[in-house]
């Protein structure tokens, strides 16, 4: 029982980490209908910019807090430039194209960003330490033999994800820009006709997605070291995304929890009898099963088709 709980909690926490990546996808899809495959590359770029800037600032003997803050600002500026370029050079030119074409274009952006970030910041592995604790802790040791093992970093990640979602929710519900974003998500043409500047809105939403990528990159980078594999996290986020629905921020979190717990439980309890390594496809199959019941994901907007 103790072990089951441990796997469950571990899975839920891992799921939150996937959600962090999935959130960026949701934001952009919601506001511009673009399935942004480049989110993984954005995580990589943001993390690389952060860790390299931090290294440089520390070499200049800046106090850690100042160095860290400046590095975050530097990475955020980089993400802003990317958002601007994406809107200017890609989205604006491809307005009104089919979704699949836009999707392809973001894969092009992925290749571009992967090449750019590695040639600017290097292709090595860079350890990242932003002061997040990384030690394991044992809970409920009195109840179960050996206790339930949880990693502090994962807990912090969950807290950060929670804050992020709350922040985004407030941003969407309470601010002027948030309202504009929701309007654009609802209907481009109608939003434009009441005077909402589409291009600005797209820039803002890509910027916000870039900042979410920066947060995801920080957490994952602290966990694994900043390196190219961060770019592959996109593939782990996709089942989360389809399960939760492309258009729902809470869906990304709940989808992450279900996928995380589901795949870890499957790997640990079913895996050994099937030869192991099943979690990747299990996540997708799990998402697929949910889709068969609800084709637009758990919280996605209902697709209404008219002939």
């Amino acid at each position, binding site marked *: 029982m103790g072990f089951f709980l441990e796997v469950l909690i571990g899975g839920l926490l891992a799921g939150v980490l996937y959600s962090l990546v999935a959130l960026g996808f949701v934001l952009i899809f919601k506001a511009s209908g673009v399935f942004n495959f480049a989110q993984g590359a954005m995580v990589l770029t943001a993390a690389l910019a952060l860790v390299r800037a931090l290294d440089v600032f520390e070499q200049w003997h800046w106090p850690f807090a100042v160095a860290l803050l400046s590095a975050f600002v530097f990475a955020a500026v980089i993400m802003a430039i990317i958002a601007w370029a994406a809107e200017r*050079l890609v989205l604006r030119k491809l307005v009104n194209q089919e979704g699949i074409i836009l*999707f392809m*274009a973001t894969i092009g952006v992925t290749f571009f960003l992967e*090449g750019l970030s590695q040639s600017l910041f290097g*292709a090595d592995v860079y350890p990242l330490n932003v002061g997040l604790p990384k030690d394991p802790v044992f809970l409920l040791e009195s109840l179960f033999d050996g206790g339930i093992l949880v990693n502090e970093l994962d807990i912090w990640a969950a807290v950060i994800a929670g804050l992020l979602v709350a922040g985004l929710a407030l941003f969407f519900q309470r601010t002027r820009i948030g309202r504009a974003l929701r309007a654009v998500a609802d209907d481009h043409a109608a939003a434009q006709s009441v005077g909402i500047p589409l291009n600005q809105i797209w820039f803002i939403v890509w910027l916000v997605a870039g900042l979410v990528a920066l947060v995801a990159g920080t957490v994952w980078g602290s966990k694994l070291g900043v390196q190219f594999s961060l770019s592959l996290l996109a593939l782990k986020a*996709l089942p989360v995304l389809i399960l939760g629905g492309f258009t729902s921020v809470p869906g990304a979190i709940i989808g992450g929890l279900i996928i995380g717990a589901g795949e870890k439980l499957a790997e640990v309890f079913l895996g050994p009898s099937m030869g192991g390594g099943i979690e*990747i496809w299990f996540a*997708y199959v799990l*998402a697929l099963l949910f889709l068969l019941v609800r084709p637009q994901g758990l919280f996605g907007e209902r697709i209404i088709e008219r002939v």
Partner: protein
Amino acid sequence: MIYREAGQYKASYQADQAIFPIAQDRLAMLALLVIAFLVVPFVASEYVYRAVLIPTVILSLAAIGLNVLMGYCGQVSLGSGAFMGIGAYAAYNLAIRLPFLNPFVCILLSGFVAAAVGIVFGIPSLRIKGFYLACATLAAQFFGDWAFLRVRWITNDTPSGSVNAPPLQLFGWDLSSPTANYLVALCFTVVLALGVKNIVRGHIGRQWMAIRDMDIAAEIIGVRPMYAKLSAFAVSSFLIGVAGAMWAFLYLGSWEPAAFDIGRSFTLMFMVIIGGLGSILGSALGAIFIVLLPIFLNQALPPLGAAVGWQISTATVSHFESMIFGALIVFFLVVEPRGLARLWSIGKEKLRLWPFPH
């Protein structure tokens, strides 16, 4: 002037519905085939075969297969790499377990295995659409990756999970030379491409296109979505499976599951989109483009850099390669979202009026 169809009268429906109704097109196609079959074997070096021609020809077939599904039937699939793998491993198992079968028969039969699996993985498409379907097909991709590694029967209990193609022979001829590999691949691709061209012109193809354009409307006018979608999955998987078997037997020779990973799926998707959705010719153009571009960049960048006095390292080359590749894809999509095939037809239109455009 040279491309003028005036005076070419069609006296029968048959003539009007020919694949190439214009005489110049027929001639050009014929010339292309003659060059591909008769001239290339005399001029190509082994490097050109191995690095350029064989991959292009095989991947063209795979791209045509994916185009059937994406371009004609409108079902986005990211699992094509796995279907190439299914073809490869099916051919391998047929060759190992039924040693009396000729390897080329195995290649063809493997297509049917892939088609059967394709139908199974096509079932969710009856309910799920668009990007949800694209992501769902990743389930096929990752399940394939896993099965090729884990199910020991598939790899004939090889300890490492890496398998080899059997020696290629036909009626006692040794067909393992690059020229022979190329000709075999070309035969398969040309014959199957011709077959597909005829399928998409026929009633099945029209059903696919109706489903693509709007499935509910198609259903109302009497197209059975289940039949149309699953047949598209079957035909598409068949072609991709055959291409996968050729990729393994004719190109790699020995392979591991990573040869059919998700990167392969993306490459095929690029070919289809860059080439042009819903075009057989476009698939081939896309394959040529995507195979050649990295090789070209890889060879052209260092001399270019040296010319301006900059020593480019291997790492920089591949970073730049990645950047230019990404940028070019965006560029192409921006200027012509309908791909190279569309460019080709624009070019033809221009040629018809040339040299008097008004």
